[in-house]
């Protein structure tokens, strides 16, 4: 299959005696939203941390198929996953730069590009035209995304002063600023009300369809998961217990058992 964007094989993560992820194999497609669901402590966030280089997986392989290049994600440590492989992520508890303005948050996300343009600060210090040009372009990209989430008029306010729902959306579009191939979202709908969830669904669909970016989603909010997922992977105790479309997942006895337990 050539349209596998992310290919995870036999991923295992052990913390001492605890097996957080046990021999997990799954894949995500380029034009898909792939959801990872499971009860609390099932190992969902650990999968993300392995993918994005925050943890070093104990065993298994993770490959990202970028155009026709195959990249081994295990080779990259933390910041390089975002820089070199183009895997962006958001966090369960929002991690913005609260004392910096919304626009600055967007600009930091374009750091590597701008750093090169500023000649590692030397061209920037002498106000070179080529740098100023690149800075303007970066601002345009920021504005483009802020327009989409409707935050352009608050661009100069501190990110920490935004309402909760806006902070969530800002974190997602900030991650999009690194122009990722794969976007990993860790519970983006947590704490959102129904209206905000609907807006989030729209934003994610836009990213998937118009930006052709693969999305990997951890979520508890089933209205989000069932509404937008093309593919669902269910984890329990670090093991994959089910994989299929949203509809199949809803009706799967294994999944119901994991969430609700069995009656004996």
């Amino acid at each position, binding site marked *: 299959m050539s349209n596998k964007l992310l290919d995870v094989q036999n991923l295992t993560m052990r913390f001492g005696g605890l097996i957080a992820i046990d021999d997990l194999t799954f894949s995500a497609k380029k034009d898909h939203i792939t959801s990872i669901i499971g009860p609390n402590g099932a190992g969902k966030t650990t999968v993300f941390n392995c993918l994005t280089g*925050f943890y070093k997986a104990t065993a298994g392989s993770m490959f990202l198929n970028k155009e026709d290049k195959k990249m081994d994600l295990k080779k990259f440590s933390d910041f390089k996953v975002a820089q070199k492989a183009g895997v962006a992520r958001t966090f369960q508890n929002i*991690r913005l730069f609260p004392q910096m303005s919304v626009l600055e948050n967007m*600009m930091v996300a374009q750091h590597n590009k701008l750093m090169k343009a500023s000649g590692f600060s030397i061209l*920037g210090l002498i106000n070179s035209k080529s740098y100023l040009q690149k800075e303007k372009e970066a601002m345009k990209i920021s504005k483009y995304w802020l327009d989409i989430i409707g935050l352009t008029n608050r*661009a100069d306010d501190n990110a920490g002063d935004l309402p909760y729902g806006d902070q969530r959306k800002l974190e997602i579009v900030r991650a999009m600023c690194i122009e990722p191939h794969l976007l990993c979202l860790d519970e983006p709908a947590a704490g959102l009300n129904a209206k905000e969830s609907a807006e989030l669904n729209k934003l994610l669909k836009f990213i998937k369809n118009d930006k052709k970016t693969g999305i990997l989603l951890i979520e508890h909010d089933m209205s989000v998961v069932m509404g937008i997922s093309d593919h669902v992977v269910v984890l329990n105790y670090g093991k994959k217990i089910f994989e299929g479309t949203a509809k199949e997942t809803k009706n799967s006895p294994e999944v119901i058992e994991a969430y609700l337990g069995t009656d004996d």
Partner: protein
Amino acid sequence: MGKDLIQKSLKDSLFTGIIALALFGPIVGLRTVAKNEVLVVEPKWFIVLLIVAFCAVGRFFINIYSYKKEQRRGEPSSLGKAISNFLDEKGSQIAIAAIAFSIIFPFMPFADRYWMDIAIMMMTYIMLGWGLNIVIGLAGLLDLGYVAFYAVGAYSYALFAIHFGWSFWICLPIAGVFAGMFGILLGFPVLRLRGDYLAIVTLAFGEMIRILLLNWYELTKGPDGLTGIPRPSFFGLPFKRYPDEGVETFHTFFGLEYDPMQRIIFLYYLILILALITNAFTIKIRRLPVGRAWEALREDEIACKSLGVNPRNTKLTAFAIGAMFGGFAGSFFATRQAFISPESFTFIESAIIVAIVVLGGMGSQTGVVLSTIFLIGLIEVFRDFESYRMVAFGGAMVLIMIFRPRGILAKRKPTIIMGKQG
């Protein structure tokens, strides 16, 4: 409500009095005096009573003050806020006025030798504060060993100038580069540390450099210090009354009477220019990607990593650039004093510079100037009271922390503005 408050405040100030008594009773109240060749304890209860009363009454008023502030929450009416708003609005005009004042300062009628010396000292601290502001204020790395870079700059300047006879303008960048290298050297082992742990290690690093200077006798002459550091010259024209045969001096070249103040005024302008360069550089680099990355790193390191920002390089540049400016200030210090010894680079210097940055308001360039004038000025005003100077210094810090808990100027300006049109 009011009665309740007064009752509570009285109770609180009573406690404060008891604590003050327990502290100052033994420290101030009991004094050993030699009488007939025996040590006798002489009680000084009156002074203790005064101090305790001061603490208790002061505490009472602070309680009342903070209560009133609570009541007025949301109303921007306090004096500190008014000053800060004023500085925000008229910031650029005030900066220009301040720079203009510092340029004409040496020609003011009252600017005698004493005032010039204080001005030079303040400028040195302002420059160090601006340098450290990059590390603490922008990158958020609490560096308690900044004086080490000051020392490295001073010693490398002195050694190059003494042994190779190179001029100030050649030695200055060399000293800066050396200090910057030491910044990277310190940076590497502390990359993973943050907050308190980083503070401890940098503190130790500062002491290591001092002890190294103290014990490497062959190079640094240890506690004897380095003497005969060449004075700076005005583009090759020395400031000397009786120059060597055939050497033109500053005053003969310009056809002036010899005056030792000429050299002092030259030094003053030198440090003024160095400090202004530091300031201009910091203001500019804050708006570049690397400056924004520093601030982002201060805000959230993990988020930085998830966006592909290299935390190692970002931290190291902050350490190196901050250290470089410390090195420049150090070489100025060496050439001004013409004598340096490890005595000048003790921990208290680091502490003063950190205090200047923190009390000024983290990351605020103007705040550094204000807190330097306040703190160093206060130390100078109390010069005649000897050991009470440090009490005044401590008192000033306590006052700033009560009235402006986030520093004199706490407001941060964004580095890039979208504006209305985008």
